[in-house]
């Protein structure tokens, strides 16, 4: 685990050595503010709550997280530095976990920069912080799942761009299938399709946590998806190592 943390620290710092990280955070915060103030109409609505911000988060994160993870393995593959990584006296799971935790640290920092929204609401009204805590917990769980998916996808490519595209596709699909609009489109299909979509999709589960209810089933789902893709990532790298 200590090796993972060392690697995570390295990955985390490496994000901030490039302007890309700052652009990412700026875009993320801008998207959050636009969704909160303009799309959800905070002032017109007049309610001291953050639903307008959180309700767009599954989509915002689905777009931005693959941008963070695309380079993680793809760049190693492209540069050939993966060979070097394989020679490190670290277990494959430490490598994967290191990259995951480093990226998660960065996502957490990005979320931290949106704390101005609840603070503003608290100043203007009496904010219930329970759903806010739930919302940020849900954002971290969702972010974790996206990061795990993005890392796994990245491990398959030697070029960052296809990793980004496939990452978007997969994260977007998992976000979208649970959305009520998509479920509405499934009306013509057999009932089990929409039930499966509702079960697999991220959106509905995110809504439940975001309203302030941390249900074991939702938490377990996010964690298990994260765990599954991290395991698949480890398996993928181990296969590579074996091939090498």
């Amino acid at each position, binding site marked *: 685990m200590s090796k993972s943390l060392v690697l995570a620290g390295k990955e985390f710092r490496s994000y*901030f*050595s490039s302007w890309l990280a*700052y652009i990412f*955070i*700026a875009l993320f*915060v*801008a998207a959050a*503010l636009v969704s909160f*103030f303009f799309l959800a109409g*905070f*002032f017109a*609505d*007049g*309610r*001291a*709550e953050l639903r307008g911000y959180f309700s767009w988060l599954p989509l915002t994160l689905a777009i931005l997280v693959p941008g963070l993870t695309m380079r993680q393995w793809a760049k190693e593959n492209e540069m050939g530095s993966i060979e070097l990584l394989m020679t490190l006296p670290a277990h494959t799971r430490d490598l994967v976990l290191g990259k995951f935790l480093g990226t998660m640290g960065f996502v957490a920092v990005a979320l931290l*920069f*949106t704390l*101005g*929204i609840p603070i*503003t*609401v608290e100043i*203007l*009204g*009496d*904010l*219930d*912080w*329970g*759903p806010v805590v739930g919302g940020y917990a849900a954002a971290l769980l969702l972010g974790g799942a996206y990061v795990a998916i993005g890392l796994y996808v990245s491990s398959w490519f030697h070029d960052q761009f296809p990793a980004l595209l496939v990452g978007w596709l997969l994260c977007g699909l998992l976000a979208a299938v649970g959305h*009520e*609009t998509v*479920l*509405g489109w499934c*009306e013509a*299909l057999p*009932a089990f399709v*929409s*039930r499966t979509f*509702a079960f697999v999709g991220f959106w*509905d589960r995110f809504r*439940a946590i975001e*309203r*302030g*209810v*941390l*249900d*074991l*089933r939702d938490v*377990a*789902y996010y964690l*298990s998806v994260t765990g*599954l893709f991290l*395991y*698949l990532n480890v*398996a993928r790298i*181990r*296969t590579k190592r*074996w*091939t090498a």
Partner: protein
Amino acid sequence: MKIDRTQIVISALLVAVNVILFNLIVGEFRGLRADLTDGKVFSLSPTTERLLAGLKEPVEITAYVSADENIHEDVRPLVPEVMDLLEEYEIKGGSKVRLRRIVPEEDEKAEKEARRDYRIRPQIGIFRDARAQGVQSFYLSLVVKYPGSDAITLNADDLITQNVFAQEQSLELKNVELELTKAIKKAVLGFESKRNLFRRFPTTIELTTFITPADQMPPSLKDVPGRIDELLDDLAARSEGKLVHVKADLGDEALLKRLRVPALDVEGLDHPLHLAMILKLGDQSRRLSLLDYDGARSNEDIEGVIMGVVRSASPGVLRRVGVAQYLPDPDGRMRMMGQPSLPPAYLALARTLGQDYDVVDLDLGQLRSLPADLDLLIVMEPAKLDERAAYLIDQYVMGGGKTIFCLDRSDSSMLDGTRQGAEARDSGLEELLATWGVKLQEGVVLDPNCGEFFDTRSREGTLLEGPWMSSVEVGLDEGGVNREVGYMRAFEAARFWFPGSIELTPVAGLSQNWLLRSGAESFVRKASPQLVPDLASWPKSAFEPARADEKRGRRILAAEISGVFPSHWADKPAPKKEKEAPTEEEAEPSLEIADQPIPSSRPTRMVVVANGEFLDLVQAQVESQAGPKYALFSANARFLVNAIDWLLEDDDLAAIRNRGRSFRPIERLEEGAQNRTMLLNFVLPLVGLAALGGTLYWRRRLRRPLI
């Protein structure tokens, strides 16, 4: 260890399968959750938990809910919340709650049963959005059944409401726990009251049965007379002498004709078939035919029918609420000038209250008596009431009666479409209320910080929009609602139209609290025929802004008073009663008004709202049609319900109703301040980001080797 590639793939697949199985297993662990909200709004309240723990028999909750794909997308997200809550009932109730979900479209028999026994029909919703407009029907109903009691049905209308505060049309759940717990309480009360029901009757109940003897019955009904006899004898024994069962002589045709006893000619029978009973209580009698109920019905069903009639005639099972308002003239004549015009709004109010209370309509224009068993009296928009009516209300309060007054000192009723202003007018109750420390101020409150208003009563019949000062909104800023008062904690907001204001002065023995207040910039203007909106001169406010002599500040729009009330007639003689022929209504038991006034009350409670039109539900309905953002008047009805909870000391339901705060308003900002707030939110993270980048950059530079 050498790792085979196939092994890796297989293990990865096994992990994936395990993850799916894990989630399927975890999916069964219901109720393991943390409710992070203030007030635990997504968890069952202690009141409900106590109710469930105290159930003697299991309560059955059946959810008739369409499959997700058949429910419109606006309603679909709300269904899991309803089902989650039902699961909470099941988990917390243990063996005392049986939960079933039925998808009516997939179970034809259940659908028929739902329609026949519980009158459940698919909900038809009209939805409009940017893409389309359409109609979709779906099921979303709950049925609560408690052994020996009538089933109670909650339909979608009872569970879902329009979000009146949203910018666009959106639906949200009502307080489902409140509705469901209320239903369980009602069902249990229905059962409990059966045992105590007869005690409530002041006199003996005579139940005369007109039933064809068993030997003359068709084969399928041969057992019915015996079953009914047995049942009624059992009821009579339980009634402790209050129920007398009499078997009528079916040979007395004159009697049958006089009482209009229903009979049925059955093929193969040479005599008419009688299966009826008449319940007589004092002067009242109710006829009941069992012909509609086939012989296959169980004893419980037949007992349910009989008890239903007994219950409907029983005093005090439901709380009785008297709504005193000006009722339409029965002969259609227009009222005399000076009297307010017909307010059909309060008939809608009576219907709304009728869902939970036994509502008695009282005509303020002819208020000469009050029913003796009123639990609560609501006085709506009184105008120029005479002294005798005021005395009647005073003595009702002295008898411990609970009251709500909605009144002011101006007439802003504009239903004739010729006036839009507010004219001075007295209610006739000013002196009476002053005795209890409630002084109704002259003039109307105008508030420059009001929201947009929609006037349905413009002369041209068009809709006018604009922040009219005569439309006073409270609760949209902090300080408008007294959230220190328990039942107001979760209250959202209210809207008044030309409200009056209240000044509270201390009275020994009484506790007074303000409940709703106007904005800090509001002021009072003298009511006069000239007080009309003038959009030409004041296009933004419709009224002249506060003049130098009009002091700005918050004004009390609603208040509560509790304690021992002194009588206004404590030291003076009662006003003389007009000699009039007793009406049919007066033949019913009514409150005896003694010539010697009762000088002070038993501890009781009162709510005063300084606005006659506060509960104009017709206006509320019209507003709702115009769009959700205009529908604040609907929220006024919620204030009424909260107040009734407090007045009737129904603390259990009030505790559920007021858990958490569903609406938390933000401070209203001018457009400039809004823009500055948004700008700050955009700029500060950028500054923070720049600071972070700068710090990291300098740290890296400092670490860089000098050579």
